[in-house]
């Protein structure tokens, strides 16, 4: 019996495609953000509010993933930005090759801000690099404040936590301070925003966060050129 050391990543093929995407995003100065949450935490609603509020010259686009239906793409199309649905047909996450395939007929040079709405799932999307500049995790106040401890991987890998549906706080037994403490226990430097899309609370902070990241990515891309 002989033992052959392999020492490589199981998902090296996905990582290779993700690195290629990241390089393309860098060249075109596209900020790519990967939004992840449980189903029903408000990813599409946050995107609706975001697209509604962005300036006309923001040059945004959205890839939205689901197991079935074009419903999310249909919700986002009225905002007049390029939107494409990725229907995975059963797969519980997006991978880099799906993103690359669906970007094939878009010109990245014309997109400054690309949102990827992942399949609703707190587990599997954490393993798949999509070439994004940052992962963002959403947690709604109708879920449990211990989610960061139950699903630590995605909270560790996300730069930003957006706590959504905060207008419902008076009606649910959700301890928002405990949720934030749990997130920071897993990821001490995590940035956290509180947002209510129905009351328009906290949206300014979210848009500022996106704008700041866009500015940073433009600077980085100029440095590369």
């Amino acid at each position, binding site marked *: 019996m002989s033992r052959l050391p*392999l*020492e490589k*990543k199981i*998902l090296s093929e996905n990582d290779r495609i993700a690195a290629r995407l990241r390089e393309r995003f860098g060249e075109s100065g596209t900020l790519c953000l990967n939004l992840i949450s449980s189903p029903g935490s408000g990813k599409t609603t946050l995107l609706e509010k975001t697209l509604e509020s962005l300036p006309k010259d923001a040059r945004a686009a959205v890839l939205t993933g689901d197991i079935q239906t074009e419903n999310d793409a249909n919700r986002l199309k009225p905002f007049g930005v390029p939107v494409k649905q990725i229907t995975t047909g059963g*797969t*519980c996450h997006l991978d880099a090759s799906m993103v690359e395939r669906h970007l094939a007929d878009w010109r990245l040079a014309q997109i400054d801000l690309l949102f990827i709405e992942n399949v609703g799932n707190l587990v599997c999307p954490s393993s798949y690099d999509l070439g994004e500049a940052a992962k963002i995790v959403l947690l709604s106040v109708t879920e449990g404040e211990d989610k960061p401890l139950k699903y630590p991987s995605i909270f560790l890998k996300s730069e930003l936590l957006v706590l959504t549906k905060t207008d419902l706080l008076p009606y649910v037994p959700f301890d928002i301070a405990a949720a934030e403490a749990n997130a*920071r226990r897993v990821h001490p430097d995590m940035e956290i925003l509180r947002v209510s899309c129905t009351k328009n609370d906290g949206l300014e902070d979210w848009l500022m966060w996106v704008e700041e990241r866009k500015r940073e990515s433009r600077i980085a891309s100029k440095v590369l050129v």
Partner: protein
Amino acid sequence: MHEVGIANSILEAVQAESGLHPGKVPRKIAVRIGEFAAIDPAALHFCFEALTRDTQWEALRLDIEVCQPRYFCPECTVDFSASQFDPRCPKCESEHTRFLSGDQLELAYLEMEEHEPTTT
């Protein structure tokens, strides 16, 4: 939930590697899975067995080493293993530690046996 995909990627790696070594039969593939990788080892075993059953890979065994997360405390300049995803330094209890590893999804090694020629 995505253990089937991971098991499939492991098998693809074995296939690619064994193609480079004609005359040898893969017997065991060893992988390292971090506790932060969001992979359930029992589910991965289950999926791997389901994918290999009644195929040429039926005799191939999967060996999973589960790796605890490791952190570094800049105050104490020590690195430590942490269970339960608790990143606090065991020495000074600081929460401002740095994540080092624990999300591995890695192929460690492949054990292969010389192929026994069939006699007629």
